[in-house]
């Protein structure tokens, strides 16, 4: 039996897709929200350090499963490697309702006005497709606010002189510092820097019918046992379902966007939870499957009219894959500095996000989330024992005497860092898989050196007897903060969609995830993805005439 026609299909129930689905459903537009994974179940992961979103040596607790979702890595030398979701090079993102918003550390950053105007602020950069966004901060401000209030953020940025202007304060008070946070932020202040509490999509007080945070140590990488961490799975998606206009279809793998003779999207072809091929028709199709999977789906949607994939006339689909090179410094203390109260990261500073001499962009610095025992065992100062008695002694003695400050560097978009599809490697359903290739821009590593040096200064000032830098920024980008592969822009020749996430070629096809990002900012991206979800959703609602898309 054919599936009943709906107004809108949203592919991907993560940060962007969950928000769009809710915006449409709340305005009477019928939605089917497709998700390749299932609903997250706390019992499926609890506090297992070997099987969560940070350490997946024994499996990816939130999916995708290893057997059915391979990817390909293409080396510079033409080598080809098939990978599963058990390592960072897979660029793994949770495959479940809520996606990364279930298991994230929940930092809720607004990007700064400069982050939307990188080319205007810094000029052109050789070897980079650095560009301004087609929207500015002011156009997104109300969407940020909506995300903060509807999904729930704790914070207070009044001590951040670099904060982007806001109309409304955060809905919940900020979290207090840990012992380590107090020590390090005092040191930062002595150096003339401006630390302040990290805004978190986590309840500092009961909010919206869910309780306050219990400071669980197994927070980042895990689902919250008391539901105090706010994602789309426990806020906007249930709200969308409650309207009666949104159906969530889990365990469905969407294979392609189908098109009609006039070149408009007609719906999607997908495989249901029993691997049966199905078709779903709709008036509008919105793709929010994460930067890698969104690009893959567009590229796999080929037809006579769109031989290179739908919405890919420019050839820019899959290009400019970015993420965040994390970089920073660590230090050892002769007394306990970490109380190991979860989740660990408490303060940030934006002194190095912009306008530092010789640096294009830059990045945020924060004290680090706690690592768990196995993770900590893999982490040692340069030259320290990797095994044996000395390794064990360090593990026992230094777990509370180590401190780290790290941050995400704003990467320079590289046209050659890209997603393609591999015709020879297919997933469980026979769909060509995503192939990742290219490297970060050479400047990223230089910028990382700068940020790591600043981090080390703070740890040293805090009294560490030994410090060292961990400098990132080389190799393939992507990973958890993957973005940029369906760039938004005003010029159809150098972008994939317009400033509302609407395809330049197919007016009823939209993108609503981090694929839209022109540049990735020097911050964790999730609040900006949610804000874009509201932005795209608002536009669709405004242009909906009650029965048809204008």
């Amino acid at each position, binding site marked *: 039996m054919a599936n009943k026609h709906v107004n809108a299909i949203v592919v991907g129930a993560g940060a962007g897709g969950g928000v769009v689905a809710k915006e449409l459903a709340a305005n009477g537009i019928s939605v089917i929200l497709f998700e390749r994974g299932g609903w997250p179940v706390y019992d*499926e992961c609890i506090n297992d350090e070997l099987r969560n979103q940070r350490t997946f040596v024994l499996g990816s607790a939130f999916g995708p499963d290893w057997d059915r979702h391979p990817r390909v890595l293409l080396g510079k030398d033409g080598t080809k490697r098939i990978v599963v979701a058990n390592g960072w090079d897979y660029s793994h993102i949770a495959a479940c309702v809520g996606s990364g918003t279930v298991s994230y550390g929940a930092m809720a950053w607004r990007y700064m006005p400069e982050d939307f105007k990188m080319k205007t602020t810094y000029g052109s950069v050789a070897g980079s497709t650095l560009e301004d966004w087609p929207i500015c901060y002011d156009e997104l401000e109300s969407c940020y606010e909506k995300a903060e209030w509807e999904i729930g953020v704790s914070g207070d940025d009044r001590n951040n002189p670099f904060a982007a202007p806001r109309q409304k304060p955060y809905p919940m008070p900020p979290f207090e510092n840990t012992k380590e946070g107090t020590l390090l932020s005092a040191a930062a202040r002595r150096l003339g820097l401006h630390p302040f509490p990290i805004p978190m999509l986590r309840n500092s007080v009961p909010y919206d019918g869910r309780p306050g945070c219990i400071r669980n140590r197994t927070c980042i990488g895990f689902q919250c046992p008391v539901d105090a961490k706010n994602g789309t799975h426990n806020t906007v998606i249930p709200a969308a379902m409650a309207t009666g206009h949104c159906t969530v279809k889990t365990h469905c793998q969407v294979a392609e966007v189908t098109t009609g003779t006039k070149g408009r999207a007609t719906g999607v072809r997908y495989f249901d939870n029993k691997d049966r091929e199905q078709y779903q028709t709709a008036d509008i199709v919105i793709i929010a499957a994460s930067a890698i999977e969104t690009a893959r789906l567009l590229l796999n949607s080929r037809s006579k009219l769109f031989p290179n994939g739908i919405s890919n006339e420019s050839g820019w689909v899959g290009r400019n894959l970015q993420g965040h090179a994390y970089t920073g410094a660590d230090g050892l203390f002769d007394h306990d500095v970490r109380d190991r109260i979860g989740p660990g990261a408490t303060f940030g500073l934006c002194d190095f996000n912009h306008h530092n001499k010789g640096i294009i962009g830059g990045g945020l610095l924060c004290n680090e989330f706690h690592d768990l*025992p196995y993770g900590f065992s*893999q982490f040692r100062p340069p030259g320290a024992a990797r095994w044996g008695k000395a390794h064990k002694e360090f593990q026992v003695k230094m777990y509370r005497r180590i401190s780290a400050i790290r941050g995400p560097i704003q990467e320079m978009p590289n046209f050659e860092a890209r997603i393609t599809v591999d015709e020879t490697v297919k997933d469980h359903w026979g769909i060509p898989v995503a192939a990742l290739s290219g490297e970060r821009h050479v400047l990223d590593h230089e910028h990382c050196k700068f940020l790591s040096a600043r981090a080390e200064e703070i740890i040293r000032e805090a009294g560490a007897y030994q410090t060292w830098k961990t400098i990132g920024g080389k190799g393939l980008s992507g990973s958890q903060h993957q973005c940029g592969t369906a760039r938004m822009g005003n010029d159809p020749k150098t972008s994939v969609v317009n400033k509302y996430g609407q395809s330049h070629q197919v007016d009823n096809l939209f993108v609503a995830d981090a694929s839209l990002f022109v540049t990735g900012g020097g911050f964790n991206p999730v609040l900006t993805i949610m804000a874009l979800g509201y932005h795209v959703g608002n536009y669709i609602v405004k242009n909906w005439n009650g029965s048809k898309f204008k």
Partner: protein
Amino acid sequence: MDRRKFLKSTVTGLGTMAMLPACAYDPAPFRFFTQKEAECVIALTDQIIPADESGPGAVYANVVNYIDQQLVRVFRNEQSVYKKGITALQNSCKKIYGQLFHELEFDTQTDFLIKVESNNVPKEFWDGIDPAQFFSMVIRHTMQGFYGSPVHGGNKNYISYRLMKLEYPQVVGQNRYRRNHGE
């Protein structure tokens, strides 16, 4: 009092536990390793995380059980690497010391592993397998078995959490989780 109960009762104090001999592991039937291979792996894990004055190590935590269990589950692709690596390790020891690895004195084992780490072992036994990489893999798996969740067969009695003075994992959902992912 049977042995299991005895072990359980001694767990209440680290002081008592530190006095347990290194061989006080539960002899579980192995799924992948032969008894001989297991003895070699047990000796390896003992080198990587030895018992010392801070408390028991990998042998007590039954790390070999973790590795054995994962080799028939998640680490199936590493089966042949383990077989080859153990054989190469034993043959190298026989040539250098005239004894198998697990028969050597603790300090001699340590000296030998330092050689393995720098690929300074008889090449003829290591065909198609890199000594340093093999050892690195065993280190990684030993750390997982010792410091990871006990549900996967190692970290017996939460021993690493006790050493690191971390409170036990919360019990919420634990029982159902065990049924789905543990033994």
